[in-house]
């Protein structure tokens, strides 16, 4: 029986663990909660977007808050989770500032991280029964 006022019943999963999974593996939170179509789509699209950004010579920004925008971009980059760690381990993300696609690559990488943060919030809402 559906919960009153359009709310769905909250999942039995710990919402904070769901958030951690959703951050670490794009789509992971949705997969955990049984939203397989959403989870699989995010699992394909977000890492692909991140990898494409690196491929076209985008940069993974350092945590350098003397330049605020660089620091904020670093936080956004980190939002993609495990693909960020794998890219760092593989030595990717140095960026090539003279490449014509450099700024585009940065945008892809940053937005992929931000979209995954949005996916984390969505997974949280599902876990607590708001969606």
């Amino acid at each position, binding site marked *: 029986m559906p919960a009153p006022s359009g709310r769905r019943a909250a999942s039995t999963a710990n919402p904070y663990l769901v958030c951690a999974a959703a951050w670490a593996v794009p789509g992971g939170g949705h997969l955990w909660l049984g939203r397989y179509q959403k989870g699989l*789509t*995010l699992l394909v*699209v977000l890492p692909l977007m991140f990898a494409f950004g690196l491929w*076209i010579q985008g940069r993974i920004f350092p945590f350098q808050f003397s330049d605020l925008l660089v620091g904020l971009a670093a936080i956004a980059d980190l939002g993609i989770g495990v693909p960020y760690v794998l890219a760092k381990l593989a030595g990717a993300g140095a960026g090539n500032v003279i490449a014509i*696609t450099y700024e*585009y690559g940065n945008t*892809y990488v940053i*937005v992929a991280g931000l979209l995954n943060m949005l*996916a984390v919030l*969505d997974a949280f809402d599902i876990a607590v029964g708001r969606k």
Partner: protein
Amino acid sequence: MDTSHLGLLLIFSAFVSIAFAVLMRDEPREQVLFGAKLFGTFVGSAVLLGWLLYPLPL
């Protein structure tokens, strides 16, 4: 690979539209319609803005 501005805009718009459609709509049919609208709006507004800026000197 296509490194034109338009090509990269199209790919970017496709990625973002898919992610937003999946997050904001539940039914597959709604997702497709919403994603297509988003994609069209992204591309259309970028092209329009490009033409509006065209007369301005760099």
